[in-house]
């Protein structure tokens, strides 16, 4: 069956009624966050308990649905209750017992269990009061465009996507706009690639459109290689149809009839939801031949990555789709000329695509109203590390790092001091405290020596050693370097050896200069973006935290107390009760001391295993 435009609108009306409590015989709608994070935190038990308790009470006019990531990973499992004429209620950190109580109180008797709601968990609501999620500090400053459906719809049901204006943008493009108009709208919107580079999307599409060929392709980059980032996963898990719709629009605008989504194999739920979405769209004729009777046809395929960071680079990604070792190749020729299978190809990131239906539907002006002069719209960040609220946040471009960390993120736990935020993953850099008030956009972040990246934002506090962090990222690139070009393959390894010397306390001051020289050499001479950006974490930390490097090299000291080789364990005399537990735990007999007397550690014998510290019940052992 191929849907007509009229049928799409009918379906929207009908589906909207189906998911609105108070209509179509639905008393309430309860959704459970059922993305990777929710499942990991125990959402399965919650949903089972919901179904069981409703059945026990004989309630059958309440819908229980699974949805994508609501964004507050910290507070999973999350349950949201929608009832007629009421703001939605957000329950957090649920388990089977709490759920049972909630069903009996809230669903059956209309009494909200305030102590389980978000406001109580964050401490923002007074006792017994309920705070709507939108009013919490975590949500207030966010604006959801790419994530608008995540945590709202059931991603495995196309009608819910359609109810929220899904496929209306495709309808508009195919029935009202010429391909050139679509591209013009994107150019006017100022949308830039969300995969890291920030290249203007409309311009990219216009390059492919300009090349005549018997076959062209659209490729979606869902390889999400930055370790510690999961924006694209959440979009695919929570709103896969947005990507399907946008890729189809891209096919229309650039003259491509086939598309490929390259997804990490480590994202099984994303893959499953995407497969379902493609099946459903095909069944309704929203993919396939002659969509909406326009004569335009489009097909989508999925290919799974297999764990190679370099395959996130566009040329390597295309080589990998062709079934080969995912090695990058020199550009030009650019993919717009010679891409997948040697044909003109447009390649965009998941989040870039997720913005597009909204832009087509509401216009370029509407989109460009948010953001800074050269960076329009919003950006999704995966907030993690030493921060109170970890999760997914979507903020208007131009928000400052301070707002993200202090307001949205709720600050650093344990009263610790903020040290730096890392963006851009292994290709990026860090933002030290002195730059915390910089408005976040592509150009500002580049100017302060970091980069937007794909959206990983890791917060570090005083307990993190910046040399160790630089070493961590370099270890990653050494491992992931594909080996094709020597500056990257050999150079990163040599840098790693110098960092090893530094963290082992065996380096001399000249090593720092050597490290820097090598870094610039690798940046200038590598074949692809991986090598060209691999030294960034080292250069950024050298610039902002040179004193920490110097402390390691000259004073043989790790100020944060992380680098094992530079640490010694000591007994704090005031706290030691002489219980002998540590001496018994020490595998090498390095601890001396009699019962009821203060103990002492022989640092020459000590192998720094930390067993004494783990054993001591009085906190009498310290590392410094």
């Amino acid at each position, binding site marked *: 069956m191929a849907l007509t435009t009229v049928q799409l609108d009918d379906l929207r009306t009908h589906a909207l009624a189906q998911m609105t409590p108070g209509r179509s015989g639905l008393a309430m709608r309860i959704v459970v966050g059922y993305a990777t994070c929710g499942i990991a935190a125990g959402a399965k038990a919650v949903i089972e308990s919901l179904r069981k308790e409703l059945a026990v009470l004989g309630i059958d006019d309440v819908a229980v649905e699974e949805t994508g990531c609501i964004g507050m990973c910290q507070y999973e499992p999350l349950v949201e209750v929608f009832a007629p004429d009421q703001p939605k209620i957000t329950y957090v950190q649920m388990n089977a017992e709490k759920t049972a109580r909630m069903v009996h109180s809230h669903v059956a008797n209309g009494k909200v269990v305030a102590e389980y709601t978000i406001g109580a968990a964050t401490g923002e609501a007074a006792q017994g009061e309920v705070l709507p999620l939108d009013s919490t500090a975590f949500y207030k400053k966010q604006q959801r465009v790419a994530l608008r459906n995540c945590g709202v719809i059931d991603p495995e049901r196309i009608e819910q996507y359609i109810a929220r204006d899904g496929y209306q943008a495709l309808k508009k493009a195919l029935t009202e706009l010429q391909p050139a108009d679509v591209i013009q709208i994107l150019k006017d919107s100022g949308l830039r690639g969300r995969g890291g580079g920030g290249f203007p999307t409309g311009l990219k599409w216009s390059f492919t459109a300009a090349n005549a060929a018997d076959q062209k392709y659209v490729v979606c980059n869902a390889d999400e290689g930055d370790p510690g980032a999961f924006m694209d996963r959440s979009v695919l898990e929570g709103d896969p149809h947005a990507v399907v719709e946008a890729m189809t629009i891209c096919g229309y605008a650039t003259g491509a009839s086939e598309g490929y989504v390259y997804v990490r194999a480590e994202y099984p739920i994303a893959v499953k939801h995407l497969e379902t979405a493609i099946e459903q769209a095909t069944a309704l004729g929203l993919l396939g031949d002659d969509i909406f009777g326009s004569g335009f046809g489009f097909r989508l395929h999925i290919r799974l990555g*297999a*764990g190679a960071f370099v395959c996130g680079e566009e040329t390597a990604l295309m080589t990998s789709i062709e079934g080969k070792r995912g090695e990058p190749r020199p550009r030009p020729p650019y993919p717009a000329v010679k891409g997948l299978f040697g044909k003109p190809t447009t390649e965009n990131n998941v989040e870039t695509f997720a913005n597009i239906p909204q832009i087509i539907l509401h216009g370029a002006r509407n989109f460009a109203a948010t953001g800074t002069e050269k960076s329009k719209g919003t950006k999704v960040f995966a907030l993690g590390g030493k921060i109170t609220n970890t999760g997914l946040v979507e903020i208007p471009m131009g928000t400052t790092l301070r707002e993200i960390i202090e307001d949205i993120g709720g600050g650093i736990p344990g009263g610790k001091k903020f040290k730096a935020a890392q963006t851009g993953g292994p290709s990026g850099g860090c933002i030290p405290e002195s730059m915390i008030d910089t408005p976040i956009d592509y150009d500002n972040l580049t100017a302060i020596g970091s980069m937007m990246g794909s959206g990983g934002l890791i917060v570090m506090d005083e307990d993190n050693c910046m040399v160790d962090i630089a070493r961590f990222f370099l270890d990653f690139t050494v491992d992931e370097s594909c080996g094709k070009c020597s500056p990257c393959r050999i150079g990163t390894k040599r840098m790693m050896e110098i960092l090893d010397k530094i963290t082992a306390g065996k380096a001399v001051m000249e090593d720092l200069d050597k490290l820097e020289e090598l870094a610039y050499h690798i940046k200038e001479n590598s074949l692809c973006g991986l090598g060209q950006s691999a030294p960034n974490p080292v250069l950024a930390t050298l610039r902002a935290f040179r004193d920490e490097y110097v402390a390691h090299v000259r004073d043989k000291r790790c100020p944060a107390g992380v680098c094992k080789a530079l640490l010694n364990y000591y007994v704090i005399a005031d706290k030691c009760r002489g219980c002998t537990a540590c001496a018994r735990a020490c595998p090498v007999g390095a601890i001396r001391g009699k019962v009821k007397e203060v103990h002492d550690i022989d640092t020459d014998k000590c192998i720094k295993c930390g067993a004494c510290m783990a054993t001591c019940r009085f906190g009498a052992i310290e590392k410094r």
Partner: protein
Amino acid sequence: MLKKVSKLPFQGTECQAQAFADVIAQYKSDPSQLMTVMQKAQQIYGYLPFEVQAMIADGMDVPLEKVYGVSTFYAQFALSPAGKHSISVCLGTACYVKGAQAILDRITELLGIGPGECTEDGLFSLDACRCIGACGLAPVMMIGEKVYGNLVPEQVEGILAAYRDQ
């Protein structure tokens, strides 16, 4: 990427051979599906020993050298079998800054194996992975399909013991 190659003799079952033949039949005509075939073969056999790689090369009509090239390029392809319980410690950035290395070190200390290795009794294999998407629970590890979050090194021994007793 350097990979550990298993020296254990390979033994496939009739049932596995049938499943493998079906995969080949489905994808044979499209050489760009080589990776898909290798992924499915790994699902069937658990890993990709040389014998299976040779069967893939035969079935897809590509040189064995090409199959080997792909298998060593991507982290996902395993050249040695996994233990009965495969442990995967996340060393993504979010987990790392929250102390994932100490978790990994503790496991290594307890089991006497490093990442990419399997215990002699075949009970546990250990791997380090990059972000499983549960950063909100960092540091995280997976044993089989089960995710353990908010870990501290002291918990590791107890968690592993539960698997030993199974």
